[in-house]
């Protein structure tokens, strides 16, 4: 009997109708989109340390530098506040500041940011009050700011669930004739969720002005990327939805800023969504409650420290003569001022009104909630008298 291999290599004399049928081409099949221009870079795009950096605007470089320094100081201060018990938890973005800052700076004021729970820094860089950004993590209210004020959606804890929101908002803006873009941030782990896939598909089908920004920091809590996906890169996922994928070095602030700015511009002019993957690294543990020694080797962290986003940019600025000791000191001092103010404000106990737990459940309180509010008020009064 023929082996399968032999049979398939026999080209003449198809033995039967089934085989003949198999050779019939599908009527008029064509790829809907040519995948080639959608494919990401073969290697994460770098600008710093390459010839391409010559095009970078010195003012932008200096702005990025100041923001990175401030961002790192913010991460350190917030982490310190967890040790003092002032924050319940803080998911640090130390090592990922270039992504956070570039995300904020790539947007116009009218655009929207859809951050994940980790992206406090992007929200602050976009202008959000540092204390309001930490309210969720301090525990006084879930979202400590009005999302409309800076066009920042609530920091989203359930993973990837904010991505369809970003698509819907961007779509709605376009329906209204506004040239608003939504930038939606997600981690590498979050790309495994169903919501990620549904959001990308909707965005591509609707040609919604959205940019999906994945910070691939190597781990989803303890799970490394290799256990999260078998795709060549996360950026490659874009092709299947019919949108371009971009792969960028997440520690190169200039490259991230460039790629995101392009993607935002493309979305704004009606070009549709883009998926950007920034390859970076989470230097700190997942949160202060996590023990990273259980799942990663120290050597790995050290290798990434040598590829630090601040280091990379500082080298460039110094070589160009844009930054000297005075400039460094000025940036550090500005960051220190921010940290001191944050520390001081966070060290004051927030004044909370327990009755507020009933205030925002519905536009108008139900009878049941009014009864329950009365019960709590009576309890509080009794407590006060005791």
């Amino acid at each position, binding site marked *: 009997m023929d082996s399968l291999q032999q049979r398939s290599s026999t080209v003449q004399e198809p033995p039967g109708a089934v085989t003949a049928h198999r050779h019939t081409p599908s009527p008029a099949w064509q790829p809907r989109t040519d995948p080639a221009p959608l494919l990401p870079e073969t290697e994460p795009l770098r600008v710093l340390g390459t010839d391409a950096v010559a095009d970078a605007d010195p003012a932008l470089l200096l702005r990025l530098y100041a923001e990175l320094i401030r961002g790192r100081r913010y991460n350190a201060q917030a982490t310190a506040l967890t040790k003092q018990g002032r924050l*319940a*938890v803080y998911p640090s973005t130390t090592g990922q500041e270039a992504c956070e800052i570039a995300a904020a700076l790539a947007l116009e004021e009218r655009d929207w940011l859809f951050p994940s729970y980790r992206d406090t820094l992007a929200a602050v860089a976009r202008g959000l009050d540092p204390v309001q950004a930490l309210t*969720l*993590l*301090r*525990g*006084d*209210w*879930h979202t400590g700011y009005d999302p409309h004020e800076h066009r920042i959606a609530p920091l989203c*804890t*359930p*993973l990837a*669930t904010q991505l369809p929101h970003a698509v819907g908002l961007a779509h709605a803006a376009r329906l209204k004739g506004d040239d608003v873009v939504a930038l939606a941030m997600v981690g590498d*782990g*979050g790309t*495994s*969720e*169903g*919501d990620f896939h549904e959001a990308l598909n909707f965005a591509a089908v609707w040609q919604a002005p959205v940019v999906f920004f994945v910070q691939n920091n190597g781990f*989803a*809590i*303890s*799970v490394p990327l290799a*256990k*999260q*996906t078998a795709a060549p890169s996360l950026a490659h996922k874009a092709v299947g939805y019919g949108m371009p994928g971009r792969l960028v070095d997440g520690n190169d602030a200039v490259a991230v800023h460039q790629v995101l700015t392009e993607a935002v511009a493309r979305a704004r002019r009606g070009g549709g969504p883009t998926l950007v993957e920034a390859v970076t690294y989470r230097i700190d543990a997942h949160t202060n409650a*996590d*023990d990273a020694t*259980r*799942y990663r080797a120290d050597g790995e962290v050290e290798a990434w420290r040598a590829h630090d986003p601040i280091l990379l940019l500082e080298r460039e600025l110094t070589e160009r003569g844009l930054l000297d000791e005075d400039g460094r000191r000025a940036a550090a001092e500005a960051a220190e001022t921010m940290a001191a103010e944050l520390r001081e404000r966070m060290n004051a106990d*927030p004044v*909370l009104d*327990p009755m*507020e*737990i*009933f205030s925002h*459940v519905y536009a108008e309180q*139900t009878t*049941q*909630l009014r009864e*329950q509010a009365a019960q*709590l008020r009576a*309890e509080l009064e009794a407590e006060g008298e005791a």
Partner: protein
Amino acid sequence: MTTATTGTAAAKAGGNAGKPKPATMAQALQRAMRDAMAEDPTVHVMGEDVGTLGGVFRVTDGLAKEFGEDRCTDTPLAEAGILGAAVGMAMYGLRPVVEMQFDAFAYPAFEQLLSHVAKMRNRTRGAMPMPIVIRVPYGGGIGGVEHHSDSSEAYYMATPGLHVVTPATVEDAYGLLRAAIASDDPVVFLEPKRLYWSKSDWSPEAPAAVEPIGKAVVRRKGTGATLITYGPSVPVCLEAAEAAQAEGWDLEVVDLRSLVPFDDETVCASVRRTGRAVVVHESTGFGGPGAEIAARVTERCFHHLEAPVLRVAGFDIPYPPPMLERHHLPGVDRVLDAVARLQWEAGS
């Protein structure tokens, strides 16, 4: 319902004369999975971070090392995928034990849970059972930020085809989880996360006998009224019962352990003895578990009741931020207030 066997280690415990070491609920749960995996090669544990890390609460600590990554698997981060894959694994004869990292992160898996896990036996006229355990750390009181403190038991209870159990003691954590894994039906296993670190002089070397799922237990004997409760509210009720003693109330405390199936017998026997009942849980009250329980007790014990069955529950609000959670969680005072209201007179 299958009755689970006791741990293999029980056999080895013969010569162990030393005092049992205190164990935490988290350790008891971990031991239950370990014993079940050792006895039955079809038992597989999976979820986010359950392998190398041992779970964010360390409940699966050491299982991947001992049984390999195929038996204790770090999955991609996708709850619907995890539970959907568990359905297929169960179809092929495995017994998946799935960890959902936190209560509110189980919601993406609800489609699989409600449409498939709960209904597969029924749809296939019994041909395709779903022996899956879905472990869900639930409830508040640990200062968790948004989406980390939900009490989702009412959703599970309202879904025919699921068993819903929740331990309140270290011993029960072991016994109930063994029974859940041995069950040929899907079990939503709710782990009260604020009791994870509670201790008992429980010896993992001599695990307690495992009772089948569906039996409530009287945790404290009393004559004046019955507190019907479960999971994280059991210690609250026991404390309230002690405090009530001083005010002349002798309270009985029933720990349900299993919400589905519901042990009408134990609960109603208690209420008939005491003539009064309060249901206590931290889940919301409106349309919550207590509504079902109070209705059942009223239907069965109407002529024995001296007062309406009362409920003490969390407020009907989304779980509040950590700094305000103490105002939401029913504590000893709210239970005692309800007990005082049991001196009910018709017409008042």
